[in-house]
């Protein structure tokens, strides 16, 4: 195995283009190094992008936020402006693993690992986040939900690298939230995750909303019909029940070591309802 630590995206991309063997991008490494412990794992090249120029910080722009691919989730949690604007995204990112994992893991890595249970992804999808993808053919910006295509698989080309995640500037009266269910209080993979992002009008009625679920299908599920069910409401009980019902119905989960189909369906609705309530409060809804 070869280890490289390029200084530019171009060099990183070139290393990936030129390799004949199996290559992996290393940012936080909290997924890649775990996989590497398996006797079945083979890698010829690891490209560490932590020294790549421009990937190491969070930039606030007129349009919103650009989060470099090498920014650790712990650093996200310490970014006051980002946290104020997108508390749901940040809390989702901060749920990934322990303090030790937080020091290393990144949301771009969480996205590229393409686990159906990734914690930050439903929150990012609900937030309408975009991935800035750089490769030999230039740079393209795609919705975050277009990155994972199946468990462990992404839409990225061989030499493409996510350079950053972009989040919009917040309109007034907006809030987001992410909740997950785990059996313990820490250190687990989400059995179900739910992200809700919404904006209210001046009367406190939901003007727009996005609802995304994790760990209930092969990839993150954006539940438009559930979002529609709360638009135009003030999250009255009936609206929340409808939201929960539609979220449960949108699930296509499996039975596995972490949970059952029935459990995931039911809890997806419960969490979406609770997350919506938190997002609504954060948006200033009464």
């Amino acid at each position, binding site marked *: 195995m070869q280890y490289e630590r390029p200084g530019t995206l171009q060099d990183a991309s070139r290393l990936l283009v030129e390799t004949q063997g199996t290559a992996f991008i290393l940012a936080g490494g909290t997924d890649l190094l775990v996989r590497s412990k398996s006797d079945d794992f083979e890698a010829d090249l690891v490209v560490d992008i932590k020294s790549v120029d421009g990937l190491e910080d969070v930039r606030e722009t007129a349009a919103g936020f650009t989060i470099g691919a090498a920014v650790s989730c712990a650093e996200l949690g310490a970014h006051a402006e980002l946290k104020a604007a997108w508390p749901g995204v940040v809390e989702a990112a901060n749920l990934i693993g322990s303090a*030790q994992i937080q020091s*290393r893991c990144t949301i771009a890595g969480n996205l590229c690992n393409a686990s159906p249970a990734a914690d930050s992804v439903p929150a990012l999808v609900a937030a309408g986040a975009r991935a800035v993808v750089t490769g030999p053919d230039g740079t393209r910006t795609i919705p975050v939900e277009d990155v994972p295509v199946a468990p462990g698989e992404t839409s990225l080309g061989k030499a493409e690298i996510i350079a950053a995640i972009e989040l919009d500037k917040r309109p007034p009266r907006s809030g987001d939230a992410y909740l997950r269910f785990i059996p313990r209080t*820490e250190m687990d993979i989400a059995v179900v995750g739910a992200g809700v992002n919404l904006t209210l009008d001046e009367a406190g009625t939901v003007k727009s909303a996005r609802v995304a679920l994790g760990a209930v299908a092969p990839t993150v599920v954006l539940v438009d019909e559930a979002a529609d069910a709360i638009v135009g409401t003030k999250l009255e009980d009936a609206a929340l029940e409808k939201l929960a019902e539609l979220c449960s119905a949108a699930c296509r989960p499996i039975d596995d070591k972490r949970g059952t189909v029935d459990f995931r369906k039911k809890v997806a609705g419960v969490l979406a309802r609770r997350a919506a309530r938190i997002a609504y409060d954060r948006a200033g809804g009464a």
Partner: protein
Amino acid sequence: MSGIAVSTTINGDEVEYLCQAEETLLDVLRDRLGLTGAKEGCGTGDCGACSVILDGRLVCSCLVLGAEAQGARVETIEGMAQGDTLHPLQTKFLEHAALQCGVCTPGFLMAAKALLDANPDPTEEEIRFGLAGNLCRCTGYDKIVRAVQDAAREMNGG
């Protein structure tokens, strides 16, 4: 296969080593540098027994490549005491019997140090969540939490 040459700082000392690309920082510390205080309990970042502080941040050294330590500052349990003076956390762990088998202790001490460095006066809940990445199977955590509380009190002059 030639090794990767790494220059780093460990517990304040400049250290140079050669390692293979596959080797983790934990492998390097234990097998190449003889610093066996960090333990491998799982190899997958789930138990925290290999915790070290890398550039001021707590990490599982089993999830860091040895090559990544180039130019970094690494703190391990072996550097926690200053000469023959134990760190207050070490003293309080002893006084409170916060260890039974002791194999998780170096990781807990590093995690507790990182926690108190960032938050000198944590609540019980903050301590419990701050240490959630470190598994202990002997103590039920009770005496560990009390030791950290007491150390924080002492370090804050109280």
